[in-house]
């Protein structure tokens, strides 16, 4: 599934990130790379962008960017 499909509160492992150019590069620089954990925090009131937690900080991405990121949802820690 893609990052955009995560529901608020869900956590996932990033599998692949596709695309190139400035946006893909910026995402990689900001920690959206395969192997990192990501948590969906919320969706903006108007439906876009998204707020995520990566590497312990809060990152905002548009849905179009989140669609490039394939993730595997993780089970919630007890």
């Amino acid at each position, binding site marked *: 599934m893609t990052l955009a499909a995560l529901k608020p509160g869900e956590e996932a492992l990033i599998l*692949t*990130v596709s695309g*190139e*150019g*400035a*946006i*893909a*590069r*910026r*995402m*990689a*620089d*900001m*920690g*959206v*790379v*395969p*192997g*990192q954990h990501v948590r969906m*925090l*919320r969706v*903006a*009131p*108007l*439906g*876009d*962008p998204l*707020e995520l937690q990566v*590497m*312990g*900080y*809060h*990152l*905002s*991405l*548009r849905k179009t*960017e989140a669609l490039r990121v394939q993730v595997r949802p993780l089970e919630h*820690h007890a």
Partner: protein
Amino acid sequence: MRWPEWLSALTRSATEPCHYLHEQPGSAPVPAPPRGPARSAVVALAGNPNSGKTSVFNGLTGSTQHVANFPGVTVERKEGHCRFGSWSWTVLDLPGTYSLSAYSIEEIVARDVLVEERPDLVVDVLDAANLQRNLYLATQLLELGLPMVLAANMLDVAWRRGQRLDLDELGRRLGLPVVAVAGHQDRGLERLKAALAAALEAGPAALKGAAQVDFGPLVEESLAEIGAALARLEGLPRRWLALRLLEGEARAREEVARWLPDSTGLLERIAVWQARIEHESGQRVELTLAVRRHEFIQGLIEACRPVGPDPARRHRSDVTDQLLLHRWLGLPIFLFFMYLIFQLTFSLGELPMGWMETGFSALAAWVDGHWPWPAPLLKSLVLDGILGGVGGVLIFLPNIVLLFLGLTLMEDTGYMARAAFLMDRLMQRIGLHGKSFIPLLTGFGCSIPGIMGTRVLENQRDRLLTMLVLPLMSCGARLPIYLLIIPAFFPAHLHARMLFLIYSIGVLLAVGMAKLLRISVLKGEESPFVMELPPYKLPTWKSLGTQVRLRAWLYLRKAGTLILGVSILLWAMASWPPARHDAARQTELAAARAAGDAARVQVLDNQRAEEDLRASLLGRVGQALEPVMAPLGFDWRISSSLLGAFAAKELFVAQLGVVYALGETAEGSESLRRELHSRYTPLVGFCIMLFALISTPCMSTFAVTAREAGGQRWAWFQLLGLTALAWVLTFLVFQVGSALGY
């Protein structure tokens, strides 16, 4: 000045990291500043946005800052001086970046300074509460081969979140000095300075033990080969350049092609390596390298953090966000904040503006009364040209100071990123960034602070786009024009609708123009909305004061000189050459004055004024423009007044008053309305409003755009583009309207 103690206490915790700041009793003393002959060095300050880099910079340089733009771009180049014993440092504040890739203009600027100017030392300011992301830039900086010191900032926040960091271990593993600072409290700076001095003494030798990211056998093999081929480039960071080339960075390729005449073979070899690496990893090279960097950092942090963060622990910032970014409450709260800022800016600003106006008229009256020489032209120059011009510049200052107080408050607390988050969906539709919303909204008050407010945008293209369409947000100074024209031509029940129509036309045009510019002049990949939402924090008075003072000063210095020049020019055009006056009227005027017939004096004075204007350059230009403006329904009087409106939009009304020989007029002037109504049709009235809305932003807008866009080119583009647009649209409206019989 600090926040009240009870407020600071809220943000502090009992477990402050005093240990690293070496402030508890018994810690090692700060090393003494070196003595000896005076030495100087250039120190560059690098770091992520929101890492507290600015507060460290302010702490080091105090009030010695100097702000300029990097040539050709809107990125600020902040420089300051710092003395430490015999050292005298020029401290250069690089733009805040997350990496050194050459994608955003900030990254390019930071990169160019580091590679081309080669500062003697780099200080990387780290947000200790966000170490993993912050160290990413550090790994890239390390590859530059410059002596480096890490300044770990915001340890208190990290501590509060349960992130205990072993800074000594971090320093050991990276092979670099790491110093703890609390920039916003000016703590730890002496120790930082001592570390800078020590690193400078050691020079490049200090980097011998510095860590490097291991990119894996295949990449390292390729780097060795590329690095060897670059061996001829003396004094350049080879590993860094090899990495950039391997990532396929266009800028690095250009540079190598420039420096190495026979680079074709090398570039071909690089392509082979890239294919091999991509084949092995199954992903693009740059992604592979980024993954390696993040893995390296993760290993580093695990080794330096004996106690990890408690994932279940909710930060205060998150709780705040649950309210401020709430699905239903988020937008109303945002709009309320906006309302507050505008209220503060434009209502509170009116008070000092009123004082200034009174002050300037009093000054003008005093000069008028005490004028010692007979020369009336010189007197007019001083009164109308210089005093008028200086007054015109200063009058915006309260607005600018108050608005920037509001904007800095939003920026420093971290709410600005939330505003962009909330509004991005709306702005995205017109090819803009969420952060463009606030400057555009400000434009309804006044274009000047709006354009200056585009600084909150990180991307150069977004900034330009916002700036260029911003004058279409109908500013407060255009309101008097509408208030004069609408009642003159339209029945009362249409007044509000006409006003709304004019404002809406402006907004729709801004949207259309933004889209048009996006696909033409400012074409290119959409700027990434990959934005950090930094934790909320209390701003400091010091930072607020510094930011606002800098903005105010920039405005006064740059805009001031140009506005003064243009206002003197406009004055000269309006008063020269003088008209030949009818001798008979001169005697009548003298007689009326002697008889104390004020009404008659007024009429005769106004007649003189109209003759003066008709004979003046401004009037002649207006008459010369008649063939161009006639298809819009404008005669020379309207054209001359519109020219005068370039000085300030609200001057249009005053100019019309002069042109129609009615003397001083205000927008409520009934006699001027009757005059207009008798001469023109409502269609012409509408066309005047339309033209005034779209055409030539005022000269202050021109000056500020030239400054903020990094060159007069864009200001001319804006001025000519908008005026052409105004002409075409007004032409269409007038011609179609006339054909339909209006």
